[in-house]
């Protein structure tokens, strides 16, 4: 696979065999892995439900995460309460791991709200303009550092930031400026790049002539490539990057080598630009399948467990569908109120004008 380095960190093969690595090991328990598998299955279910909701006209758009569950669940579990996430627009599984209600994500893609969701202090609202959030994350990390919240002997006082961006985003000026600022100020930020091989229709080859992780050294911080479909490896590598950031050792770059199995968004048609044997190959690397194989083999899960998770997923799916009619659209009044923190006379006049007009319409 082009761009895949022989240094890529992998701890669990596609066949579900554990492999060892010189520098990284998965330190969690089997129980943790069972939990991750469950998270991945539920995330896949949520994604499928949201895609279907879009097809039924309930959402304006959906950005599927199919295939990227391990990259997201693995990295999400490396986060601690004090850490802060700056997502792009596809990090649904990270949101779920952190307990952000999925209704918030649905409301955004439905167009009911603009992104004012719960838990905003730890999981920032989605970013559509490619790469902008890399700078926000870096600035936030600079703030953490100014606050003295890195490098303290008591690790509970330390925090770090993780920012998610794509392989296409790595071409953006903002993302590169973020790397520069992060390096200049040694900011506690982890750049988590999900290289899902495609930026809509453009392959990674168009974005970079070298494996993306190799770029990091040019900015002056470590970069590492990890098998993004291996939840153990992703967790181990993200733990390492976040730990060093919290210790005050500065930024790191993680390239999670993965694949977007589905369309870019529900408006996209991948058959126009990519070969089906590619997809076939990646299907063989499925993150859920390999962890299932491993856990079955060691007897940590069995058919009964899988059936019960399947029941949970069904139940969760119906909850997701049931939520849609309950979503409230934001009001014009609330929008007028939040354009500015300190209202302006001119906009208040427009608000009254709107209210008068709307009252007349109703009458």
């Amino acid at each position, binding site marked *: 696979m082009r761009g895949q380095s022989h240094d890529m960190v992998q701890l669990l093969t596609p066949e579900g065999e554990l492999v060892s690595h010189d520098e990284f090991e998965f330190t969690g328990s089997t129980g943790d892995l069972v939990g991750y598998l469950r998270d991945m299955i539920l995330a896949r279910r949520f994604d499928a439900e949201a895609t279907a909701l879009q097809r039924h006209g309930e959402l304006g758009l959906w950005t599927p995460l199919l295939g990227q569950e391990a990259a997201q669940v693995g990295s999400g579990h490396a986060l601690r309460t004090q850490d802060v996430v700056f997502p792009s627009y596809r990090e649904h599984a990270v949101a779920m791991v952190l307990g952000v209600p999925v209704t918030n994500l649905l409301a955004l893609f439905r167009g009911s709200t603009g992104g004012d969701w719960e838990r905003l202090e730890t999981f920032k609202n989605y970013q559509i303009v490619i790469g902008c959030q890399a700078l926000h994350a870096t600035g936030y990390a600079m703030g953490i550092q100014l606050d003295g919240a890195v490098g303290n002997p008591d690790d509970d006082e330390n925090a770090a930031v993780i920012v998610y961006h794509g392989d296409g985003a790595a071409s953006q000026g903002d993302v590169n*400026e973020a790397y520069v600022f992060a390096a200049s100020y040694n900011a506690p930020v982890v750049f988590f790049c999900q290289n899902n091989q495609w930026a809509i229709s453009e392959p990674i080859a168009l974005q970079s002539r070298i494996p993306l992780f190799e770029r990091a050294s040019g900015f002056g911080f470590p970069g590492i490539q990890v098998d993004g479909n291996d939840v153990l490896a992703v967790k181990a590598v993200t733990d390492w990057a976040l730990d060093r950031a919290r210790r005050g050792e500065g930024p790191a770059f993680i390239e999670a080598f993965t694949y977007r199995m589905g369309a870019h968004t529900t408006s996209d048609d991948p058959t126009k630009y990519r070969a089906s044997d590619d997809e076939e190959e990646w299907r063989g690397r499925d993150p859920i399948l390999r962890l299932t194989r491993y856990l079955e083999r060691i007897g940590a899960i069995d058919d009964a467990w899988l059936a019960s998770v399947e029941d949970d997923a069904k139940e969760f799916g119906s909850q997701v569908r049931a939520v849609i009619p309950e979503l409230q659209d934001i009001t014009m009044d609330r929008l007028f109120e939040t354009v500015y923190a300190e209202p302006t006379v001119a906009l208040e006049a427009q608000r009254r004008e709107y209210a008068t007009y709307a009252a007349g319409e109703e009458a």
Partner: protein
Amino acid sequence: MSESLTMAKALNRGLRRALQADPKVLLAGEDIGKLGGVFRITEGLQAEFGENRVIDSPLAESGIIGTAVGLCMRGYRPVLEIQFDGFVFPGFAQIVTQVAKMNMRTGGQTPMPMVIRIPFGGGIGAVEHHSESPEAYFAHTPGLKVVSCSNPNDAYWMIQQAIQSDDPVVFLEPKRRYHVKDAVNFSAKPAPMHQAAITRYGTDATLICYGPMVKSCMDAAAVAADEGTSLEVVDLRTISPVDWVTVISSVRRTKRAIVVHEAPLTLGLGAELAAKLNEELFYVMESPVLRVAGYDMPYPPARVEGEYLPSVDRILDAVDRSLAY
């Protein structure tokens, strides 16, 4: 307590007070530390407050503004210096797609108490990209506030008010007036930032202006007075939101208005002012609102900028046309 200061020094004093008053205030920008900025507005501040409060930034405008978004989210109040007007554009996307929208997108949960200081406008004989007037781009963007000081007293107070504001403020500093001295009153309570000022009372027509054009309009009014014409001058001080109460009440009295700005004519602030006055005072005014502005061309080479910029003569010419109706 009052002292005569240049606008540059007044801004420096204002920033210093803001840094003293609130530990969350920090300055960032290119060359603002040891050098004190290319216009020396931040001179001495890094020595006094340290490198963590007065931060030299890498040469990346989007980076400066984008990281400030994150700093705001963390509870800081960043005050950014853009070296020159023509260099704000690499950071423009962050300003209009992120800074301006964050409060509304997040339902009011993420205010952006950021100040973006931009030395703006022409008249200093500079090279390309050093003399522009980008205010309309920002004023057209909901979520931003845009202000421009025209004298040292306002510079001193308005910079502090902008920093205290929970909204993002694009703070335009008329660079050709940086070295003009005037009294700064350190004790008198200043007017609210978004209130326009009537800097000269008159009865025959109102000149509406801001930033670098306030002095030109005052000069024009002095010349007109010698010729027997009484002009009122309104210094908007704030470009977004415009203080319509002051503007409309002035024009209601004088019945004539001329808007003066350096920025190109078409779709400039003058267009908005003319439209609004037309809506409000259609039956009151004796003549249409006239505009004196830069021409619709990229800012010209320095040796011809005198032809391009609104001059006292061009302003008086427009006054004559207005009075002739």
